[in-house]
């Protein structure tokens, strides 16, 4: 091996010193997601009427290879219906730990009610806290249970650690807009976006 080869190799190494670092400093910088990334589920509503799209047919539960979904249906009160038609889901639960985010439920859904969103920050401490109910997945709810819990106890808004162009199946979903923070420790304070308003139907 000659000097030239060493110089060539070192040249490549040294040239990287002057490149922009490839590291994406998540959580300070948002992770760049593709729209098709499958994260936490969202239960969508009909635009206009605001009724739930879910009719409680249990086809998602039937399609689920991990048996993560549990649905109980009930009859709509015609005066104040939850969904169009006779039937709605009175209980809709997904065990996020069992879920393998395969998207079969979305494929099986005849009304496009259950759609896999983009949230991935779902880690939590207790097994029992991973059963997401209807209120945890209904469009308009931002963040995982832990994120919302932190937001509740600290009084700070939920901040998403990603950026994505929301695909159109996720009707009405808006993930919190871009934010720039400097401090790694208390970075979650400076977000101006109000998560409550994001994604909520008129």
């Amino acid at each position, binding site marked *: 091996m000659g000097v030239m080869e060493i110089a060539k190799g070192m040249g490549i190494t040294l040239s990287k010193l002057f490149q922009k670092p490839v590291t994406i400093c998540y959580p300070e910088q948002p992770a760049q997601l593709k729209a098709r990334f499958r994260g936490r589920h969202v239960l969508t509503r009909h635009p206009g009427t605001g009724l739930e799209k879910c*009719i409680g047919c249990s086809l998602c539960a039937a399609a689920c290879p991990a048996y993560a979904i549990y649905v109980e249906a009930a009859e709509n009160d015609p005066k104040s219906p939850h969904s169009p038609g*006779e039937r709605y889901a009175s209980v809709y639960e997904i065990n996020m730990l069992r879920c393998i985010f395969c998207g079969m439920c979305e494929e099986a859904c005849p009304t496009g009610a259950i759609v896999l969103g983009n949230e991935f920050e779902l880690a939590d401490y207790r097994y029992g806290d991973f059963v997401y109910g209807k209120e945890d997945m209904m469009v308009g709810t931002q963040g995982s249970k832990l994120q919302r819990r932190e937001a509740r106890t600290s009084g700070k808004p939920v901040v998403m650690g990603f950026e994505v162009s929301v695909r159109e199946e996720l009707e009405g979903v808006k993930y919190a807009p871009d934010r720039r923070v400097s401090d790694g420790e208390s970075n979650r304070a400076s977000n101006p976006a109000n998560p409550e308003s994001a994604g909520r139907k008129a």
Partner: protein
Amino acid sequence: MKVTVDGRTIEVPTGTSAIDAVFAAGLDVPYFCSQPYLSPIGACRMCLVEAGSPRKGPDGTLILDEKTGQPKIFWFPKPQASCTLMASEGMVIVSQSASVKKAQAGMMEFTLINHPLDCPTCDKGGACELQDRAYEYGYGDSRFEFDRRHADKHYNLSENVVLDQERCIHCKRCVRYFEEVPGEEVLDFIERGSYTFIDSAEEGLPSNFSGNITDICPVGALLDNVSRFRGRNWEYDHTATVCTACSVGCSITVDARNGQLERIQGRENYQVNQTWLCDGGRFGHTWLRHERITTPMIREGGTRAGAWVPATWDEAIRLIRGKLGEISSKNIGLYSHADITLEEGLALERFAAQLGTDSVDHAPRYSSASTLVPPTLLEVSQADFVLVLGADVHEEAPVLALRLEEMLKGGLLPARYEHGTAIADLRMPERVVRQRHKLVVFSSKSNLLHGKAGLAAEISGASALHDLLAGSAAFADIFKSLEAAQKPIVILGAEVACLGRAVLQEAETLVQKYNAKLLVLPAASNSSGLSHLQLVPRGKGSSLQAMQVGAALVSRLEQVPADFAGFLMVHDTHLTEAATRADVFLPAVSSYEKRGTFINLEGRALTLRGAAIDAGESVDLMGVIGALGDALNLKPEIRGVRSAQREFQKRLNIDLSSLPDEGQIINWSGTSSAATFSAATSSVHSSVTTMWKPNMLRGKNVVPQQARELFVGGDD
């Protein structure tokens, strides 16, 4: 008779319909309107096949094909509905050709024109004949581009049956069912063409058998309102078991989801219920899931005034051990409801013998039982004269009323083939004239059967029996009919059977005189089985009415005598009136959760299987006996279903663990009969227990407690 189906030549009996010939050949034809126990009418036109048959010439010989020399087949010009086409000698049927497929797919397209296709919200989805057949035989697309018919989507026909008029495909099964099976025409088609819809003239469905239309509806038009939206068909755990609400023992499928009983459907048993159920058996199960207690409970502070506190079985057994230690084991009474399984009954009998107690009883029961062999339900439907004395059949054994209706229609049963009951038996016509003269009913109160009988009167069954035996001239017509009849049957209801041995003796004399068969409607669902066990007080033993014992185990009985002051252990599913006076409560499983054997009114042994219902720590009577044995340091002889069945293998030489699906008539001769046991009985149950009252279930919202009373009964 030889028939060729798609090249396969098969042998079928004369009178077979083309559809059954196709099924007999092992091929499949889609159909909606045919139902094995209803008359074929060819309403849906789905079962189209090509058919042709040889023809005879003027000389009486078959016309031969000039080329082949074989009989020439003269084809029908168009596909035929195979359910209304009788197969004939030498007929050729083509069920799998392209033109048949096209005809069937076209028919399916027509059927689906006005069908809303709301399968995701429809409770029938997943078990729907239309869905399956559309998948198998349909085009998968529709060329119909106009507005579909819109009609009432949620129309309550009655409290228990909900109608979706959009989904109806006008197969007419429900309309025919009401006319042909219970003989109560409460439903009919209204309007014409695509505007046709079904409805009842009055409010609700005034029938005790309305729930069956939800089973036979091939689409989701008629649905069970009790299980509405409780689960999808593929989510249920289906358990094939037997209904123990009355002594008929209809075969049912119990559907549970997440450990909760949600739905009961009829199951075919040609010998017993065909496929039909009464509304009480089908819809009256909701009591089970309300306020059920599934853990043992003991009293706070150990006194009866104390509040109930949940306990473990160990704590309950410790308490029982403490209390029973002070009492002689001869002074312990064992009392149970008469709907326990045969195995539980045996365990009770053996445990009583082990304890040495004479105080063992079951209720409700008659003081005496007939030793004559009862007729089977098929014999009832084929009888040529039936005399009903003091029975309200619609209350005491509802499905027996359907067999009586069948008897009035002439007792025609659908043929049976290797592929099952004939799908379309062309001998079964629509609108049969009922031979009312074949039925005579005497009971002190008018009931639904009175309207169907040729002769009915509101006189007490016992006095009618007495007069009949005395040869009263007023009954001359009946004597004539009895004498003329080949297969007469006398049905004795609770009103007569509870009167004791003397009256029963009279009935037996009458029956023997005319060579008839005697059917005594049992007091409770498993009475006919338990009457062969020694479950009545012996010697000086205390009956359930007296209960002169120091401690008593009372299993699933509503009440105990008011003056009973001893230690009371109640084994039940709910906190009943008896339980409010108990010292310790032991949770019981319901009949839907038991394994075991059930003997119905014709003496047929039927297998109970436990449904997937979450019963917590509940146990059956054998479990309680095991716990009692634990408390008394005794090892009960019968500790499980298997050991009981081994004992029955010895006694009856029958393997109860592998009974056929349709059950098996048990021959009790050689075992100690009920008569010898009941001779020792000191008290007589004079009260009649009707297990449940379908009339109360109909058209009313059944609150759980009420439904429970209807079911669990006890002496009222």
